[in-house]
């Protein structure tokens, strides 16, 4: 029985219960994620992190939430009031909606009913996730626009450009998964990985592109240009305070968890155990698969934290160049290769043909990269005159050294 058939048997009360569970999981994992991030980031910077509220500071994010809720809620006079209030609601609710199609466990029983911890199983589940996360960006853009202030506007514009660019790369990286799994349903993709091998291994380039673009998609360091605090104050949420700000905060972290969960589902075999540990899946009446699922989500979340601790923020033009000139062409070529291989397989081509095609691709890539190496861009730079200056100058791409003596 497929997951879709299994979920179709759910009575209405069970659907309501599962919706509640998904919501609670989202909120609690956000609270824990904020705490985890602050602690891990602190460890990476030789600090301790929050350790005052509760054991190990575990209640810190709850205390921060209460503090935010009790603060004065300001709506600027220049703001478009309705949109200003609507923006954080859109941003938050869309993040939660993405979780509806994520399969978090295998077959389990909830109050005696056989089901799976997945709210619904759409045949186009991944497409649905892309759709709702795109609507979530409206929250950011509208927040920036409706604030009636310069920095939020700039932040909102940056964010829209950023997410549009990286959503293309993200969508393209997912196409290879669809081709390989032959389905857009999340549970089918998980099932196909269970039957074969994780997509992260066979579709490694897609996996890398997805991981990069999911960081861009969620506006996180090093791609956090929409809220670059050194450049735009707070970016799109500069004018927000109190609960509305808390909603944006919630949205950001739920979004991170959502894209991590999607990455887990599409590339790391979803709720299934690591290869060789399949016997653990039947523990706790199947609920142990939830542990596997969250272990993989936490793995991705750790990558988010690690990136944030390590990399400085990209310059805006570099960021756009990377998205449009590197990620998108690479994923387009990769899709062509995957599609060709897939067709060759399905047409029953001989093993020799498939291997020779793959080898041809490898040789082409090697030839192209060596050509690139040979044609390394040469730039005309001012030639140094006379002696080098006494003082050190920063190395600029076009200037070797500057003549400051004034003599010819």
């Amino acid at each position, binding site marked *: 029985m497929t997951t879709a058939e299994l979920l179709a048997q759910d009575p209405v009360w069970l659907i309501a219960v599962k919706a509640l569970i998904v919501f609670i999981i989202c909120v609690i994992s956000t609270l824990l994620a904020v705490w985890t991030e602050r602690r891990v980031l*602190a460890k990476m910077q030789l600090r301790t992190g929050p350790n005052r509220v509760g054991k190990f500071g575990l209640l810190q994010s709850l205390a921060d939430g209460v503090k935010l809720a009790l603060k004065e809620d300001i709506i600027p006079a220049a703001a478009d009031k309705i949109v200003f209030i609507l923006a954080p609601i859109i941003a938050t609710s869309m993040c939660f909606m993405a979780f509806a199609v994520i399969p978090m466990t295998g077959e389990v029983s909830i109050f005696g009913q056989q089901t799976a911890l997945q709210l619904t199983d759409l045949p186009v589940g991944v497409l649905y996730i892309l759709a709702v996360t795109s609507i979530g960006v409206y929250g950011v853009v509208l927040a920036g626009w409706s604030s009636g202030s310069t920095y939020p506007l700039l932040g909102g514009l940056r964010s829209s450009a950023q997410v549009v660019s990286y959503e293309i790369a993200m969508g393209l990286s997912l196409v290879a998964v669809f081709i390989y799994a032959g389905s857009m349903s999340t549970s089918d993709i998980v099932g196909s990985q269970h039957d074969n091998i994780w997509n992260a291994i066979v579709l490694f380039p897609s996996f890398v592109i997805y991981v990069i673009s999911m960081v861009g998609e969620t506006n996180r360091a090093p791609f956090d240009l929409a809220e670059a605090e050194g450049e735009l104050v707070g970016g799109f949420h500069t004018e927000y305070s109190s609960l509305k700000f808390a909603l944006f905060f919630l949205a950001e972290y739920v979004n991170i968890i959502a894209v991590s969960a999607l990455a887990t589902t599409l590339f790391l075999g979803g709720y299934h155990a690591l290869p060789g540990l399949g016997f653990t899946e039947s523990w706790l009446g199947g609920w142990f698969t939830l542990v596997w699922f969250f272990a993989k989500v936490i793995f991705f979340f750790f990558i988010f934290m690690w990136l944030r601790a390590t990399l400085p923020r990209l310059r805006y033009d570099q960021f756009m160049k990377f998205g449009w000139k590197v990620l998108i062409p690479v994923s387009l070529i990769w899709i062509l290769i995957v599609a060709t291989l897939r067709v060759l397989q399905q047409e029953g081509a001989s093993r020799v043909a498939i291997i020779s095609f793959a080898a041809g691709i490898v040789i082409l890539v090697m030839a192209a990269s060596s050509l690139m190496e040979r044609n390394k861009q040469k*730039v005309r730079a001012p030639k140094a005159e006379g002696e080098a200056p006494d003082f050190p100058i920063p190395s600029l791409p076009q200037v070797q050294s500057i003549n400051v003596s004034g003599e010819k």
Partner: protein
Amino acid sequence: MTDFNENSKLEKKSSGQADINSVPFTEVEQPGPAPLASQAKGFWVTFSSMFKKNQTVQYPDVKAPTQPRFHGRHQLNRHPDGLEKCIGCELCAWACPADAIYVEGGNNTPGNQMSPGERHGAVYQINYLRCIFCGLCVEACPTRALTMTNEYELADDKREKLIFEKEDLLAPLRQGMLAPPHPMYPGMTDTNYYNGDVKEAHPSQGAN
């Protein structure tokens, strides 16, 4: 501005002023991005830092000791018999670059002997909102009355509370000291005091 590639003729400007087009060009290779391995180094730095000892001091719970000569709150010292060392000369106040010290001298009378010799500091205030802890006052003090402690917790919620009076700054009475005012040690002059001849209070000093 003309583009580098379009500008084939490199003419010198007659004005003699160096401009970008008069500079002779050379072809240089763009360095390009660093190899992946060296780019990944930063990731190892942050990852390995997680397992190092962190540098945070849990401040209100744990107080890290200062260096022994740390410039903290001031202290007005006493002679071993309890008389104050401060003679109210105001040299500290004059030395202070931040104008943080206020001193009023007073006469020592037979009934009110606060320090050896003729004069004592009647009023002594240090304003810790102004003090920059440079220690010039300590250098200026001729009797070594003013020194600095390692006490650094100088924060409060009222400006008035940060103007320390003489009684806030005075060193506590140690063993063998008597609270002034009391007469000087019998047979000792103020010079003896400064030379350190007085080791403790004489029983007769506490008579009155």
